């Protein structure tokens, strides 16, 4: 099964390589290392968000409020930066994480303490957090103009030739890898997804773990909030509107089972990369932007069909002769 899991990711990686190959037949420069590095950088935020969503989905929950959380946290730091440009960026990032954490914890508490299904809770907070952004900002936008050069420049600074944004993504990927494979929490997250009842019997506090998982996705939302705002240099109520579905789509393409328990860090990253490449490539290979939506829709459906193929149980084999054959 382990080998099989790897198998799935190898498939996805192969699909990505084929995709890049296809694109470069029409636009050779696309496969340049420089350009690929840039595609990675462009996809960083989606990757980070997909990882945050992944831990939630693994526990058979879902966080629809991530994009709204991003919007709110981003607005908070943007407004802080506009009002007090002297606040150092690391502190702002910590603030973004903290704000994200609070929003995530609200989701988590409602799921844990009141036992409301996560899809209902986050459907509610999806609108509440975005509305709260409006109330907070009075509807006004924070423009590039009002942001300090450091605020905008931090993620763009290059370290070893790679932008900080990409480094942050790499760091987050590494952290999630350790979390999911090397910590008790990570294993409990899988266990809850595989069999929640058994998890209770095993002594895992399912409610508390779900709470933690929502805190994680909240923190990720906060981090993405700062990164998004400083990348697109505008903070408004409409930031990342509807993006929650892209995040989930990345997870789905990455082979994370919506029924919980199945999925890996590599899958989430590759899934995000797949979407990132498509949205990056369409404009350059001169496909009308109006095709973009239909193409990513088809990609999602195709990915689910293929994943389901892989997941389909072989069934246990009783007959000797079949086993031998």
């Amino acid at each position, binding site marked *: 099964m382990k080998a099989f899991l790897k198998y799935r990711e190898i498939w996805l990686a192969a699909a990505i390589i084929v995709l890049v190959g296809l694109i470069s037949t029409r636009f050779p420069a696309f496969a340049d290392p420089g350009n690929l590095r840039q595609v990675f950088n462009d996809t960083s935020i989606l990757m980070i968000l997909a990882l945050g969503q992944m831990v939630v989905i693994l526990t058979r929950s879902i966080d629809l409020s991530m994009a709204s959380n991003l919007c709110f946290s981003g607005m908070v730091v943007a407004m802080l930066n506009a009002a007090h440009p002297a606040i150092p960026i690391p502190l702002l990032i910590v603030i973004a994480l903290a704000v994200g954490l609070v929003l995530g914890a609200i989701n988590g508490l409602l799921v844990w303490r009141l036992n409301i299904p996560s899809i209902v809770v986050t459907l509610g907070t999806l609108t509440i957090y975005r509305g709260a952004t409006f109330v907070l900002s009075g509807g006004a936008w924070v423009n590039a103009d009002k942001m300090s050069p450091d605020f905008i420049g931090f993620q763009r600074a290059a370290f070893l030739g790679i932008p900080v944004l990409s480094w942050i993504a790499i760091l987050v990927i590494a952290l999630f890898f350790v979390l999911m494979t090397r910590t008790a929490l990570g294993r409990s997250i899988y266990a809850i997804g595989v069999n929640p009842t*058994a998890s209770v019997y095993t002594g895992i506090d399912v409610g508390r773990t779900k709470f933690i998982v929502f805190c994680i996705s909240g923190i990720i939302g906060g981090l993405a909030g700062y990164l998004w705002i400083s990348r697109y240099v505008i903070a408004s109520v409409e930031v990342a509107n509807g993006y929650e579905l892209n995040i989930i789509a990345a997870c789905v393409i990455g082979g994370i089972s919506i029924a919980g328990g199945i999925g890996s860090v590599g899958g989430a990253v590759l899934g995000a990369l797949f979407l990132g490449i498509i949205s990056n490539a369409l404009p350059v290979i001169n496909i009308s932007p109006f095709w973009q939506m239909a193409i990513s829709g088809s990609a999602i459906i195709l990915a689910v069909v293929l994943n389901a193929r892989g997941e389909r*149980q072989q069934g*246990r084999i009783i*007959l000797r002769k079949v086993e031998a054959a």
Partner: protein
Amino acid sequence: MDTTAQHGTVKEGPAASTPRLTLSGISKSFPGVRALHNVSLSLYPGQVTALIGENGAGKSTLVKIMTGIYQPDSGTISIDDQAVALHSAHAAFGHGVTAIHQETVLFDDLSVAENIFLGHAPRTRLGTIDWRTMRKDAREVLDTMHAGHIDADARLKDLGIANKHLVAVARAMSIDAQIVIMDEPTAALSMKEIEELFLLIEFLKEEGKAILFISHKFDEIYRIADRYTVFRDGEMVGEGLIKDAGQSQIVRMMVGRSVDHIFPQRKAEIGAPMLSVSGLSHPTEFNDIGFELHKGEILGFYGLVGAGRSEVMQAISGITRTSGGTITLEGKVIAPKSAADSIEAGIVYVPEERGKQGVVIGLPIFQNVSLPSLKRTSKSGFLRLAEEFSLARSYTERLDLRASSLSQDVGTLSGGNQQKIVIAKWLATAPKVIILDEPTKGIDIGSKAAVHGFMAELVAQGLSVIMVSSELPEILGMSDRVVVMREGLVAAVYDNKGLDAETLVRTAAGIAA
């Protein structure tokens, strides 16, 4: 290990020493149900205590209280004379209590090693999980249990059911628990695995563990237990040493009356062929299955767990697709593509996994019973509740269902009472052929007799019955003929005249006579 134990003699445990765990005055109510009322129980080191009671007597509820999953409304739990509070399953572990629950509860998609060590995995110095040590420890635990054939790296879902149970036991062992609880561990096992399990229980006794063993099968209880405690309707009605109590005495305590379980006598009036199956095949599960079922006949299907009996039955009732073969009902070839088709044709399949395949938890009793018969209880698509209630009433009352009303959610019934619903709902479709897969799995002795009586009645009315069972007495006591399956093939068909248990077991296991 003491070899005498393998021959079924019960050793006198260390003379009634101090109990390791004592429950006293435990009460627990659910909305509308008093599951436990002021019960007490003691478990002694190195001894097996059997917990006995009818379906719904409160046994599993007590297990859940002892393992921290439910909190009692009142009463105290003490371990080694220290009062303890078990807030959660984790807390229970901390006090050395572990359980193998009634429904197998493990993680299909995780590895064997992880299933054993989830929650208490060995750590590296950095505090991260030490996978290498974990695998090594897992192998050690499995080895000490004589289960070295199980690969610690395998996914649990790739194991057979018996091996899964062994993993559950290995988990209990790895926790180094002093108190091990087993809630109907044998319900899904056949002879061979049960024997292995008993060896393990002996081993645990040697280690000085206190064991609570729940089962509806008296042969097992007499075989393995040292003491017994009997529950009736959530109250404790008796306890003592098993060697001092006869079976009828215990049964009387259990049901409040005497039940002498004798299989019903039937005049074999076997008629024309009803259902005949030939060459039925499936790519991976079974091959070239052929047999004939007559009007008024009970055809037993015996085999080890995993022999493929259920799959064959599900194929006959249209649930599993076949790759070849024909099914003939009353001379007409049928090819059911769904359970709906087969029910319409007059063949019903009463599945074995009641929670998953049998009852619809969330719907009230009467809606469960009427579900396969909706065509009859409704009129041009519109429901008629009165019809549904009367249908449900006539079948549930005959099976002596214990419920407060027919509008009660089946999820609130005990396991055995849910099984009665399962049987009732398919009987209510008035079928020609009824296939019962492990029909008495997990139901108490009184109800078992009722089910058997009912089967006899059915065939007397001219129905034909296929009974899949892993219980030898049931197979021998009820069937007219017995089909034995082994590894997806029909190994033999016997007439049940002078048929003995040994022949069946040997055929099922593939050991030459």
